[in-house]
């Protein structure tokens, strides 16, 4: 029992990342009909927004501290972050400590801008091209974005810790009446899950309760008819692309403390997220979210020692295996709608 709860919890944070990326992919596919292979790169860029902000915040100048000396007796050189000057030592330290959550504010405009530029500058020209061309051009873009990041940030993972307040773990087991220390779960992962749930809820609410969302949903169902109504669907779809980019970016920002960002993390997640989208059902938003969590949890279960003893390596292939089975038995995925991408 403890093991099962623990695995479900472990699956949640990865599942959250899958769900967030898959949500954006589905939004883009559903509204624009474009298969975006560069979506993983957006997730990665989001993570590097956090890296960038924490670098900006820790930007410092060197001062010579006469009160301290090094072992040779010379005055010690100390790096002095500018934020200390501006906000004082305590506030400055807190700001640096909270760099990752603060990056959310930084990432939203940056990611939306990147998304809009991408859509207007590139994707727009591929609406009427074959899916193969869309895959290929976005694949090329993904390589370019990834290489640019690699050039500026290097190839090694960059540790980007969560605020100190979230160090340590929460003892779920004790709360539920099991032995202490049986089911422990790091605080930041709880934060990540809650954050993902809020974002997902926000996107759904936005689509459900705003006029904008209504038009977009109508466009997802039948683009041509909505156009006939004289609604400028293109501009809304551009904003939708920006939104999807922001969702992927935020997923990346918050993921940095869980996994130190590197330039190829986007591609790693992209392949799996595509599988998630297909399993959930191309063009179905609830399907994408459901499949994201489902596969995240399944993956976590497959990594249990007991399972691996019977079926070694299952954790490596479980997601692909499920995808293959789903695609063959339910071609439309778990919640796919009729008429979407059926050829």
């Amino acid at each position, binding site marked *: 029992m403890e093991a099962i709860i623990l695995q479900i919890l472990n699956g949640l944070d990865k599942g959250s990342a899958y769900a967030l990326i898959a949500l954006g992919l589905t939004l883009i596919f559903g509204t624009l009909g474009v*298969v975006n292979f560069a979506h993983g790169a957006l997730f990665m860029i989001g993570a590097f927004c956090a890296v960038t902000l924490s670098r900006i915040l820790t930007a410092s100048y060197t001062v010579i501290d006469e009160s301290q000396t090094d072992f040779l007796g010379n005055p010690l050189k100390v790096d002095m972050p500018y934020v200390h000057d501006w906000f004082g030592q305590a506030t400055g330290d807190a700001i640096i400590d909270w760099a990752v959550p603060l990056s959310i504010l930084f990432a939203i405009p940056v990611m939306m801008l990147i998304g809009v530029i991408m859509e207007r500058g*590139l994707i727009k*020209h591929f609406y009427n*091209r*074959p*899916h*193969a*061309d869309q*895959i*290929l*051009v976005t*694949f*090329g*873009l*993904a*390589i*370019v974005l*990834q*290489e*640019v990041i*690699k*050039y500026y940030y290097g190839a090694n993972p960059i540790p980007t810790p969560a605020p100190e307040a979230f160090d340590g773990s929460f003892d779920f087991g004790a709360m539920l009446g099991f032995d202490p220390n049986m089911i422990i779960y790091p605080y930041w992962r709880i934060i990540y899950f809650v954050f993902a749930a809020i974002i997902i809820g926000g996107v759904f609410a936005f689509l459900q309760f705003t006029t904008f969302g209504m038009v977009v949903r109508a466009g997802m169902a039948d683009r041509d008819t909505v156009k006939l109504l004289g609604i400028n669907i293109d501009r809304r779809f551009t904003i939708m692309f920006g939104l999807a980019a922001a969702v992927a970016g935020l997923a990346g920002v918050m993921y940095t403390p869980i996994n130190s960002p590197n330039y190829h993390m986007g*591609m790693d997640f992209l*392949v799996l997220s*595509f*599988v998630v989208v*297909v399993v959930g059902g*191309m063009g179905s938003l609830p399907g994408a979210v459901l499949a994201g969590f489902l596969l995240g949890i399944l993956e976590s279960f497959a990594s249990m020692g007991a399972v691996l003893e019977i079926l*070694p*390596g299952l954790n*490596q*292939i479980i997601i*692909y*295996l499920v*995808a*293959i089975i789903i*695609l*063959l038995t339910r*071609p439309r995925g778990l919640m796919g709608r009729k008429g979407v*991408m059926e*050829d």
Partner: protein
Amino acid sequence: MLGLGKKDFTLLLIVAVMTLLAPLLLNPFPESSGLAQFNAGYPDLMQRFVIFGIFAIGFNILFGLTGYLSFGHAAFLGVGSYGAMWMMKLVSLNVIPAIIMAIIVAGIFSLAVGYISLRRSGIYFSILTLAFAQMSYALAYSVLTPLTGGETGLQIKSSDTPLFSNVADGDIGRANLFGMDMRASHEVAMGDWLFTFNAGYYIAGVVMLIAFYLSIRIFRSPFGTMLRAVKSNQTRMYYTGLNARPYTLAAFVISGMYAGLAGGLLVAMDTQVGPERMFWTASGEVVLMTILGGAGTLIGPVLGSGAIKYMENILSKINKDILHEWFAFLPAGLDDFIVAIVYPFVGKGWHLTLGLIFMGVVIFLPGGLVQGGQKIGGLFRRKKASDNDSDKSTQSTPAE
């Protein structure tokens, strides 16, 4: 000639001559000149040209003719490599049984993957093949370690004593063709030029020519026409009494066997294999080669693989010092500026150039280098005969 039309035969002949003379043609710069690093006439790289040429030629039979975009073809290359490796470890160091084994193993594996993946088309097909390839990669990396050597891969070791090869105790066996070492090279110095004629390269080159010849035959056959019909209109195909599935499956298996052949040859040349050969970026690379050269054309994949392997090897070797050397003639300051601009695109950053070229090709030149060549050729021809063939403009140009 050889069952080919005149145009196709000429094309084959040109490719044959180029392959034969590659050690000369690819080494145009004298050894002592600063441009010597642009020479591509060394065995290792030339082998890669022809082997990845085979890979792309095979991929083109699937993607170019039927339009099914597989994102998992590297798996077949990898499986072929492992098959060939084991043949060399256990049976014989002669490359021929190893290569045959590679083709058979890849053929069987692609039959299984194709049978399942081809139940879907479009993006679903791409993702299914991707899923299969990633699964193979993950398995080769972990559970199948006894078979694949896991992360380190497989090499021929001194402990390997193939059944039909006499390897002295403690010696490490070498791949050969009836006793001729793959690594045997003959170097010819002419003035300041040094040309290397390598046994392995010529064997791979001959195999590539055979593979290329077969692909021309397939392109021009009724089977090839049917594959183009699949790409063009499956509805009409089914309502003409034809079953598209076995056609696509046959194309899939053929291209899988080409991939296996390439994988076997890779092992025959460097006697090692690792799971990274199956990673999905390797699958992406062959897509890239085919597109860059021109999908659906005969010569495109050969050009594309050559271009990409050349860039990979040459561009990635350029470092900051070399750049500074080149731009030294510029006034101080300006040369640093130029180097700073160029540097991200070369050396370790060559993937960036690759990505940009790839995007450029898809955006501006969907037909690849071949289409680009035709466009340029068309410009010249139009100048010569601008008005006497204007009425033929609606006629199709057969694929080159």
